């Protein structure tokens, strides 16, 4: 028995008929065709599916679509205008904080909430803050730098160097 839900995704309201068991990540990817949100595991361990639900970063593989009824969702597609980069996207690009790109949308969505709650985090706070998101390619050092860069940019401070420290 399908259930009707109303969700606002990246600013657009959708009224959908969904199976009660439909995972939110499948609603986003399959029903709304927003494929920037990825699936990397089946145990809520990897964070590739991280989105914002009413501003809070959540793993959308662990939430049912019906639980999002009446709520507001932001996915990676909604963080900046097409062709533009917000401070986090720019930070990831300039600091080489992505290789294959598969974890990147989830990382950026997680970091969005992290910086909102803590606009000037220490390195340790960033590392613990993204501990629910796995990256297999980068070794995280540059992801930390990217989030620091975005923080500085959002605070309007001088931007840290994006040159590699490769002696």
């Amino acid at each position, binding site marked *: 028995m399908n259930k009707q839900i109303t969700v606002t995704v990246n600013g657009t309201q959708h009224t959908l008929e969904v199976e009660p068991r439909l995972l939110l990540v499948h609603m986003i*990817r399959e029903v709304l065709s927003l494929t920037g949100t990825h699936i990397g595991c089946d145990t809520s361990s990897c964070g590739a599916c991280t989105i914002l639900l009413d501003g809070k970063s959540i793993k959308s593989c662990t939430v049912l679509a019906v639980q999002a009824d009446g709520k507001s969702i932001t996915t990676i597609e909604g963080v900046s205008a097409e062709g533009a980069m917000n401070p986090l996207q720019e930070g990831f690009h*300039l600091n080489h904080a992505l290789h294959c790109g598969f974890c990147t949308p989830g990382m950026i969505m997680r970091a969005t909430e992290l910086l909102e709650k803590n606009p000037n985090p220490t390195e340790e706070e960033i590392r613990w803050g993204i501990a629910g998101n796995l990256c*297999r390619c980068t070794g995280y050092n540059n992801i930390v730098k990217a989030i620091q860069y975005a923080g500085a940019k959002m605070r309007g401070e001088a931007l840290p160097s994006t040159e590699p420290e490769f002696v």
Partner: protein
Amino acid sequence: MIQCKTSKAISGMGHSMKRKEDARFVAGKGHYVDDIKLPGMLYMDIVRSPYAYAKIKNINIEEAMKVPGVVAVVTGRDLEKYNLHWMPTLMSDTQMVLPTDTVMYQAQEVAAVIATSKYAARDGREAVRVEYEKMKPVIDPYKAMDPSAPVLRTDKEGKKDNHIWNWKVGDKDKTDKIFESADVVVKEQMHIPRIHVASIETCGCVADYDKVNNHLTMYMTTQAPHAIRTVIALVAGHVGLTEEKVRVVSPDIGGGFGGKVPVYPGYVIAIAVSFLVGKPVKWIEDRSENLQADSFARDYHITAEMAGTKDGKILATRFKVLADHGYTDASANPSKFHTGLFSIATGSYDYDAAFMEADAVYTNKPPGGVAYRCSFRVTEAVHAIERITDRFAFEIGKDPAELRMQNFIKKEDFPWKSPTGWTYDSGDYHAGLQKAMDVVDYYGLRKEQAEKRKRGELMGIGISTFTEIVGAGPSKDFDILGIKMFDSAEIRVHPTGKAIARFGTKSQGQGHETTYAQIIAEELGIPAENIQIEEGDTDTAPYGLGTYASRSTPTAGAAAAIAARKLRDKARKIAAYLLEVSEDDLEWEPGKFFVKGAPEKTKSIQEIVFAAYTNHPQGMEAGFEATHYYDPPNLTFPSGAYICVVDIDKETGGINVRRFVAIDDCGNIINPMIVQGQVHGGLTQGIAPAMYEELIYDEEGNILNGTLMDYLVPTAVESPKWETGHTVTPSPHHPIGAKGVGESPTVGAPPAIANAIVDALSPYGITHLDIPITPFKVWKALKEKGAI
């Protein structure tokens, strides 16, 4: 400081150019296999065996077929009708696609459910009833080698044991003789455990067979699309899928690390089903299936021995390996190399006697093994030599850095012939280690350690000075299923001076769209941002063997440089024609030819290319395109010097990696930012098996950590802050002097970490711990030695 020959506007080699591919990935516009949705597409899910070894008594699909949306359930008996129930492995062994009688490992594919939606396919999977008759599995590889062990591969006629192959290399008599008379002989037994690449994107495909045109398009997560096309044609040619009827597309790949080289049964079943029903079929495995069934890496049991003099001269090494391949030898090695390039295990040291032997064995575990970000078994080799070198230093009471400096091959002795037959191209091992020691303040740390030891505190310093072997490989020795391991580049420059270049390799995050453009920019002076790179579509890209084992830069990178040089030769002819001078009167600087002594008389590359289409010399072929298939004359031998510093909590065994300095030498550097990024990632995949990761099986063959909740991929918290640097010793035979780097750190880091931990524990007589070295292992070892 890396010298650049080109301006930042051109961004040839040596520039830390920001990546061209990033824009789509940070916007969520990457295009991965699971993002593909075709009209009428069906979804496939797979029933897997709960047992490691069992007879299939019956598969009942009745209830599954009643599930709304389920279209078909495919079993081994169905595939048998088309002779598609077995397939060859890359090592010329055989593997079931779907079983007809027996399952050989837990999580093996048993049947496939095809449905109109993902959810219906999963419902159907739950409704398939399989009746098994359990058998006693053989899990321990040493027990599998015992003559009394039951023979597992009863499908192989006349097979009387579980032994797969024996391999040996080196001079046994000479080596044994040195061992008999040497002052000092050390020996350790080590296990390099079974691990999994766990790329964040799992494996999957969309098989799209078009019945009208008898044409298959296979979108799949593969690191080697051309080789896959040929394999499909070899396996399915008899049902009409000949090679011109097959197009393999490898879209954006969410990490590979070797795990996306093999052909898994899921791919073959999807093709078979699409072929039979004439509709696209999507199969995306979930993470647990990926960890439990896809090819593992490592699983080498190694006995390592070193002979030397009392004052520290290494004289000889001996290595004996037992390789657990699981149910079938599904390694992803070049065909003639059963143990991959394990014979690099003589290391970075100057001695002339070594002997190595390996035996491979079948067990009731999933088949493999693949690389895990490592050139064909080099991690196993480097761990063995670097651990036993430290063991030797400990035995004679010599500082492990000084012992290494004493034994290194000298830079003037390259090219250097190793006792197992390799010719190392170049290296400066002394400079690398010296730089690492300076950066980390080695002697300051040793002083600190001595003081801490007096207080009973545990601090360790570990070194690894490794030699890698990458860029397979020269056609005389290297092939996969008979196809020589060259690689290719095709460059087309458009009339307005912008270019597209296509390659036989396939990036999975390495940044080829940027680095290949930089190589061409270096050679032609066309700005890298004006050069578009394409890979992964067998209909458009030139044939190549793909991306793995750090081979892209050594092979396809070389092909790019040579193809570009062919174009520069043509450009010179056109420039001479346009400037009305002889070719010999022209000089090149990146981006233009000019007349010697008259630098104002010049033609830019863009003007020359435009002329190639609008005003080319009579008798010359029009256009501006070149292709090159590069057959490397030798492999390349990157090296590195890594130093790890650990503090250990005596009461809990907790290990803190305080510092880790990595100095890499990958020859000439195309893009320092990307090289450093590769090193960061590789180091993290080095600490992973050193301290966290291992696939664990119980004696019934049940995997005990087959999900990401239990299999410990390091997070940002476990990953240290890496300190990276470089030395540059160009490869003398590579057109741009580059060597490859993606895997060096994965290879070099584990022994540096293990050596640091063992060094910390050495005052208590601990000489070896197998990786992954966990706090519990450390605590247990200290307890056993009475230290706590």
